[in-house]
């Protein structure tokens, strides 16, 4: 998922009795599945956590444009170029929907983006991995968007109205992303040359584990999850979501005729789920701390775009002010 570790700032869950009347009212609304709207009273910690979560999610959409942008200039056919570009454009749109949901909480988009550029805000670890061959465009769409969808589908029912509505909109757009990715891989596996098939397997080998990391740490390593679940801004646990993703992805993998780099992966009849190996958590935390293969490039590219674009945005503001003045004079 795109928000892998969101700090809620709470150490212990409060009981209804411990809550102020407002807070109790708020929690009861949530328990009754009534959406919280921007103007409703909400605990400060809920607001802050949401800002953190939604901004992380938004940052991920925006930074997530870069690994795919890396290949958009090299898409091998007109059709693939159109699809990939439309897909990346959607991600920019998702970022904007999410920032816009975040702003209803009183946060400022530019400030949050500044935090990202200063290295003070998180985004999904997955986007710190490089895209090294064309099949990565397929694997990203299929696995990365696929993992994101698993998470986002449940977030459509999140307790905060604007976030939930943004998620509904995003989910509608996402299924094309995953399909275009899968189709890239499928076409190469079915009709491609051996070199192309190798490309596909190589992409899956590199992206499989990072995709599983998208769901965040194990539930018992995820101290903030409980509070988030009570607030219903998280609706299923990390491990549950990861299992769902694996269960639905492996049959698709087999249909491709590919494998994943996990010797422990096998169907468990008793559980009715796939068993799988342990994630390299050291790598996960390293990447999260900024030590992934592309952390530096991703952030510096974003920072450069926004910093060097400052004069463009300022020009628009200055022009608008002049136009306003002229209109006032003419009136």
């Amino acid at each position, binding site marked *: 998922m795109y928000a892998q570790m969101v700090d809620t700032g709470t150490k212990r869950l409060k009981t209804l009795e411990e809550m102020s009347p407002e807070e109790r009212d708020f929690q009861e609304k949530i328990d009754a599945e009534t959406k919280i709207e921007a103007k409703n009273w909400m605990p400060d910690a809920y607001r802050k956590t949401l800002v953190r979560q939604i901004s992380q999610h938004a940052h991920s959409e925006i930074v997530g444009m870069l690994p795919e942008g890396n290949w958009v200039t090299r898409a091998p056919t007109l059709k693939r170029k159109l699809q990939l570009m439309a897909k*990346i454009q959607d991600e920019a749109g998702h970022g904007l929907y999410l920032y816009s949901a975040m702003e209803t909480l009183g946060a400022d988009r530019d400030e949050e983006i500044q935090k990202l550029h200063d290295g003070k805000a998180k985004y999904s670890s997955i986007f710190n991995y490089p895209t090294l061959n064309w099949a990565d465009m397929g694997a990203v769409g299929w696995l990365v968007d696929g993992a994101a969808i698993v998470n986002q589908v449940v977030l459509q029912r999140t307790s905060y109205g604007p976030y939930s509505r943004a998620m509904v909109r995003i989910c509608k757009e996402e299924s094309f992303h995953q399909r275009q990715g899968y189709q890239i891989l499928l076409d190469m596996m079915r009709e491609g040359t051996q070199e192309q098939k190798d490309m596909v397997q190589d992409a899956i080998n590199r992206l499989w584990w990072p995709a599983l990391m998208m769901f965040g740490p194990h539930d018992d390593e995820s101290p903030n999850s409980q509070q988030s679940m009570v607030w219903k801004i998280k609706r299923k646990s990390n491990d549950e979501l990861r299992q769902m993703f694996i269960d639905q992805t492996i049959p698709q993998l087999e249909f491709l005729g590919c494998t994943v780099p996990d010797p422990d992966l096998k169907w468990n009849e008793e559980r009715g789920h796939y068993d799988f190996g342990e994630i390299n958590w050291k790598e996960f935390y390293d990447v999260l701390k900024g030590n992934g293969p592309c952390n530096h490039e991703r952030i510096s590219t974003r920072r450069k775009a926004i910093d060097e674009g400052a004069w463009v945005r300022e020009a628009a503001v200055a022009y608008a002010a002049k136009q306003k003045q002229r209109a006032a004079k003419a009136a």
Partner: protein
Amino acid sequence: MTQQEALQEYLLRMADSGMILAQRLSELVGKAPALEEELASSNVALDLIGQARNWYEYAAELIDDGRDADKLVFLRDAHDYRNLLMVEQPNDDYAVTMARQFFFDVWHYFTLKALSNSKDERIATIAAKAVKEATYHLRRSSEWVKRMGDGTEESHRRIQDAFNLLWRFTGELITPDDIDHAMFEAGIGPDPQQLKQDWFGMVREVAAQATLAVGEEDAWMYMGGKTGEHTEHLGHILAVMQFLPRAYPDATTW
């Protein structure tokens, strides 16, 4: 040159110009100066590629040597490309990107408008749809030229520099050659005189509102794209764009 050969050439000019400009715009993905601009600039690129595909498909049918739109895009070398030199110029800063877009959009809009009345029905149909998109592109780039020109001191300086830098490539947009004349005489292409007049009219009008100076009509002009003599940039654009089909010549599907 037969009329059909002239028509093929003309179609490739339309197709290649849109394609190469879209390729330049695709370089900006994830790097636009504002998030909102990511969407706008990708939209223009998507429109241009969609249009180019229509032109290529028509051209491919006429050329009829087994090449389809993709082969025309990904397997021709620079000297076979027929795009305007303007569109292959690098993104540089956003003022250059926008000035390039604006000069192109004005040309594109009036060209498509004329082509939508072409005697060639296939062309008329493609152009009628494309002109709606181009209308929007032109409105957007005109607005940005005004914002930059009449914005801050810095933006004014940058867009004026961009106008000056790119002016030498504008001649090619509105200087007809034999093919342009042949297309006009056949009732297929726009009236070159009219196109030139419309282009200058619109460029001067927007520039005036943007408080920008435009170059002289008789300034020295750098031309050659329409006949396959390009600037150094095109080779590099193609090296990137055509990398996969060139590196994997045995691949028949992607």
